[in-house]
């Protein structure tokens, strides 16, 4: 293959619990980092690049290194919502290629479930700003914002609830094969911890029209860590390296006359594929941020897996499951059915890595190329898109 080999994912860890009372986010970050470094066969003191989204009690650019006891040479505290980890990976690739970093790490920890955060149904608060002053009076929940994208997509292209439900069905199928996802749904007291049908999705209650409960991600505790290294370091790691071969970053927001059905992925996706030297048709595994069904649908189009407006037909035949021919989606069970503590972008990279190592619980045989696409913020308002293309040797 002719793709560049400038940085590799060497170690991963997903914190196993989705309900973790009595544990802090910072403890989740530290425990996950230790496990990810062990996965790579690297030491705590090997870390020289610290990438972080500022999550955790007293963490961020000022506090995290002190808590962990690290002395990084590069500190990057990019916080762009749930896609922060795709941005971190992009920046680690850049810094490693420039010779500034040898062992880059990013960590995540959240106790969103245990602290009863109303992520999807709460409002937008905070001090006075040009944005909150214009939006807070209207009671727009996070879910209703995404729902407005779905409403417009259905209106503009004829996309149906049945087609979009295929995303929930395939994702749940994968979750039922992942013991940690099954435990997550059990611990979070899902009504039915089992495979679901399109009819189940369509019969679940409406949270914000036209989004139904089984189209919405869970709120869990959780976290994890990712270790990205230079090619020299990658020669001696325990597992086979997973190469970071392309990345793209973008933001999008409410614009006068703009098309809400187009996400930031329309910019970040093509940039990542161009750098990687691959096309969407060559991708085996798509790890797409499934905060809601519509997020996946919109991003699949924007990344170029099908034309804008045609995602309904593209996914409507149910091929997203790992054991069907064609593109495979979110084999860990996704945010819909495995893990969503608030910023799930990290898990997209972890599961893509498992697939390219051959370690997934819904393994696609011979998977060589994966894309992880994070969407942070609000799909129907201000959001970011971060795309990372990964390759196995």
């Amino acid at each position, binding site marked *: 293959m002719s793709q560049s080999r400038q940085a590799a994912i060497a170690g991963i860890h997903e914190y196993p619990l989705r309900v973790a009372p009595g544990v802090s986010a910072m403890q989740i970050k530290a425990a996950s980092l230790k496990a990810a470094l062990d996965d790579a066969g690297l030491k705590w003191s090997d870390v020289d690049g610290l990438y972080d989204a500022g999550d955790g009690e007293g963490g961020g650019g000022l506090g995290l290194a002190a808590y962990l006891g690290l002395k990084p040479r590069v500190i990057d505290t990019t916080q762009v919502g749930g896609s922060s980890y795709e941005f971190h990976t992009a920046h680690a690739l850049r810094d490693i290629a420039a010779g500034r970093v040898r062992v880059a790490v990013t960590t995540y920890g959240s106790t969103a479930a245990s602290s009863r955060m109303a992520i999807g149904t709460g409002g937008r608060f905070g001090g006075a700003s*040009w944005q909150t002053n*214009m939006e807070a009076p*209207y009671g727009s929940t996070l879910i209703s914002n995404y729902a407005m994208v779905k409403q*417009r997509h259905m*209106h503009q292209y004829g996309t149906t609830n049945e087609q979009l439900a295929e995303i929930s069905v395939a994702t749940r199928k994968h979750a039922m094969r992942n013991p940690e996802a099954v435990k997550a749904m059990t611990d979070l007291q899902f009504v039915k911890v089992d495979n679901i049908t399109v009819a189940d999705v369509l019969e679940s209650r409406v*949270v914000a029209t*036209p989004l139904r409960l089984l189209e919405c991600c869970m709120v869990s505790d959780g976290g994890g860590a990712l270790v990205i290294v230079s090619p020299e370091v990658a020669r001696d790691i325990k597992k086979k390296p997973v190469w970071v071969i392309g990345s793209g970053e973008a933001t999008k927001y*409410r614009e006068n006359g703009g098309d809400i059905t187009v996400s930031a992925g329309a910019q970040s996706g093509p940039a990542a594929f161009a750098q990687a030297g691959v096309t969407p048709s060559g991708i085996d595994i798509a790890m797409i941020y499934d905060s809601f069904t519509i997020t996946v649908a919109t991003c699949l189009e924007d990344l170029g897996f099908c034309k804008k407006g045609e995602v309904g037909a593209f996914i409507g035949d149910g091929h997203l499951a790992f054991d069907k021919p064609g593109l495979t989606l979110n084999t860990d069970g996704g945010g819909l059915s495995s893990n969503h503590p608030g910023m799930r972008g990290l898990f997209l990279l972890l599961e893509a890595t498992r697939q390219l190592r051959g370690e997934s619980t819904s393994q696609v045989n011979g998977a060589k190329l994966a894309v992880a696409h994070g969407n942070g913020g609000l799909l129907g308002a201000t959001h970011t898109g971060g795309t990372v293309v990964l390759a196995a040797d």
Partner: protein
Amino acid sequence: MPNRPQPHFPEPDTKHYWDGVKEGELRYQTCNSCNAVNFYPTAHCQACGSGSQAWKVSKGEGTVYTFSVVMQNRIPGFQELGAYAVAYVDLDEGFRMLTNVLVDGDPTTGVKIGQRVRVDYEKQDSGEYPIPAFRPI
């Protein structure tokens, strides 16, 4: 009766907009350099960066671009409302705003994409600023 969150000040970008709302005006900006319509209000033009903008008053009529009826929320001031419609409305002057579409009866059937709507200033118990929302024409 309604008890929605109020805008907070000092906030220099949106103060003139909200002063207009108190006077029954829906204000927006156009750029004196590039003529772009600027909304939400900002001191600089979001198209070209110019600091020279003119304030205009909208006729307050527009079209529903998209919407969602919120069936479940945990926002103080909204939990008592029952189902309500959040929407993006495209004003005829060329700006898009987040708002609510108020209808008599069930919003899940009373609000539609493409519907023509007009601004209505809803007085609030929560403070001095009424909130501009829209009703079908």
